């Protein structure tokens, strides 16, 4: 294996890592603020991919429809997330965690079958616009432009979220709400709206990941489960509620899977799980998380 292969595998791993990061960022965001682990996150991700496909089909299947999907699908999924939060999750905040988990779990089941109902069980393909189908050459390796774009988007999201959380008023309010909800409410802040906003944002991120990944793989039922579990692994390894942790963990998982698939294909899947199990045993709150009870 030479430098060329290493670069290609690295780029592939980083690409997957970035998509995984965007997905996991949504998951960890929602958990950090709402303290709910959204089992339906994977289903929303998948739904967004399907909506993207739908948009592309409605616009005549032109590859340039991709830009439209990129715009529309995550927003739609974000809105759906908002509806879910307002009507289904809000009544459940005072209930025990198991019930909340079961609720999102049931939503996942429903969304998965809903996509089957609307679009059928066959896998779908999404095309990339002309401009993104090119390749560049880097030290002898051939890298797809789209991969580079995804990596760039991942970095942008990371920087954007960090700036938002740390430098804006709203970001501070959100952090306060996550840290001490009662106190924040007594300061006159409408936490309900904040919660809805966060859930929408988190769902939007999951949706974004779904639309971005669609041209790379096929869109089909089942993509939700794999992604959700990887997302769980990332959030566990990186630390619940930590964006930076999710970024690093996703990068590690992405690269490890990529190289793992190349060297030891059979065990590659188990590898992510093993790392997660080890982290849970050794340092249960992940790299950047705080110990929870």
């Amino acid at each position, binding site marked *: 294996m030479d430098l060329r292969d290493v670069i290609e595998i690295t780029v592939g791993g980083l690409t997957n890592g970035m998509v995984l990061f965007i997905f996991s960022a949504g998951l960890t965001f929602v958990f950090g603020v709402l303290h709910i682990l959204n089992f339906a996150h994977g289903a929303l991700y998948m739904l967004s991919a399907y909506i993207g496909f739908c948009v592309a089909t409605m616009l005549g299947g032109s590859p340039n429809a991709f830009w439209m999907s990129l715009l529309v699908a995550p927003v739609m999924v974000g809105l759906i997330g908002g509806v879910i939060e307002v009507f289904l999750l809000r009544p459940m905040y005072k209930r025990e965690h*198991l019930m909340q988990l079961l609720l999102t779990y049931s939503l996942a089941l429903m969304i998965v079958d809903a996509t089957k109902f609307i679009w059928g069980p066959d896998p779908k393909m999404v095309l990339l616009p002309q401009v993104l189908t090119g390749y560049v050459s880097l030290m002898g390796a051939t890298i797809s432009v789209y991969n580079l774009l995804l990596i760039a988007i991942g970095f942008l999201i990371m920087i954007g979220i960090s700036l938002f959380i740390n430098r804006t008023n709203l970001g501070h309010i959100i952090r306060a709400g996550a840290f001490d909800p009662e106190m924040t409410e007594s300061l006159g802040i409408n936490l309900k709206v904040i919660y809805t906003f966060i859930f929408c944002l988190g769902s939007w991120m999951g949706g974004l990941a779904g639309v971005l990944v669609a041209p790379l793989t096929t869109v089909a039922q089942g993509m939700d489960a794999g992604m959700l579990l990887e997302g*769980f692994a990332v959030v*566990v390894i990186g630390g619940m509620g930590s964006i930076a942790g999710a970024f690093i963990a996703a990068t590690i998982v992405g690269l490890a899977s990529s190289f793992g698939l190349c060297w030891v294909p059979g065990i590659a899947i188990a590898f992510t799980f093993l790392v997660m199990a080890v982290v849970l045993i050794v340092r249960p709150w992940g790299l950047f998380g705080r110990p929870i009870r």
Partner: protein
Amino acid sequence: MKPSKKRIILTILVFCLLAVLGPTLPNYYIRVLTEIAILTLFVQSLSIILSYGGMTSFGHAAFYGFGAYVVAILLRDTSISLIPAIFIGAGLTAVFGMIVGAVCLRAASLYFAILTLAISQLLFVLVFQWYSFTNGDNGIHGLTVSSWLADSTNYYYFVLVVVGLSLLAIRVILNSPFGYTLRSIRDNAARTVFLGADVWLHRLLAFTIASLFGGLAGGLYVGYDHMVYPLLFHWSKSAEPLLMVILGGVNSFLGPLVGAVLFVFMEMILVKITTYWLFILGLTILILVMFFPKGIMGFVEDRLLPLMGRVKDDGKQ
């Protein structure tokens, strides 16, 4: 709190009734009853860790599938017949459960739930991809059992006996000092530690027992349906016992039975109407979680029994 004499007599009567009903019903209904019995055991095994142990597992299907696959592979590759295979399967699943428990129980409740989910999905992928051993996506079909057991009525009796004895065993375990310590851990783990109990060990034992009976149920399933497939490990399969536990009621020993009966009827009716089974499953869980969190039995105990002048009995007052 010992079960009243009335209850024991009632239970024995019910079993006798079920036994006598056997030959009189058409084949279809015997199979339905068999399925209910197997599922009751499966759900009861989850109930051990969920309702009595307070541990939320999203991957209980892993043990069901594991037990089933062990039996299937033994039947296919060796000359071991069904009954020994089922018990070997249960035993191996218990060992597997102990290992899984040892790993997963180190994690706090939420992470425990994630880990159990991950393990069952991992098994799913493993079984799916290990084509040479498990036949992958196709599953293993056409398993032959001895002709005596192949008859539905005979198998029904066999399952009835096994499930009945298992439920009895579980009842004894749950009402023993071990069982009460387990409930104490569920209610307040920290306080139980102060009382001197080894929390981790109790949970591990409960988990192992649950996996034993889960695997037993899986093995019984093979005798019922004569096939296995990877979806037995899927996370959506784990939703079924969860649904049944909630349906039946988390705080009642008979909850799993009620849940299993309702579930099977639901399945029977709905499968004819629609193929979107996951949606129905999810919707039912949703409605239950939001409006009937204590399940049907809980609803009965909270609303109906007081009307009849009775008080609920389960150790959680």
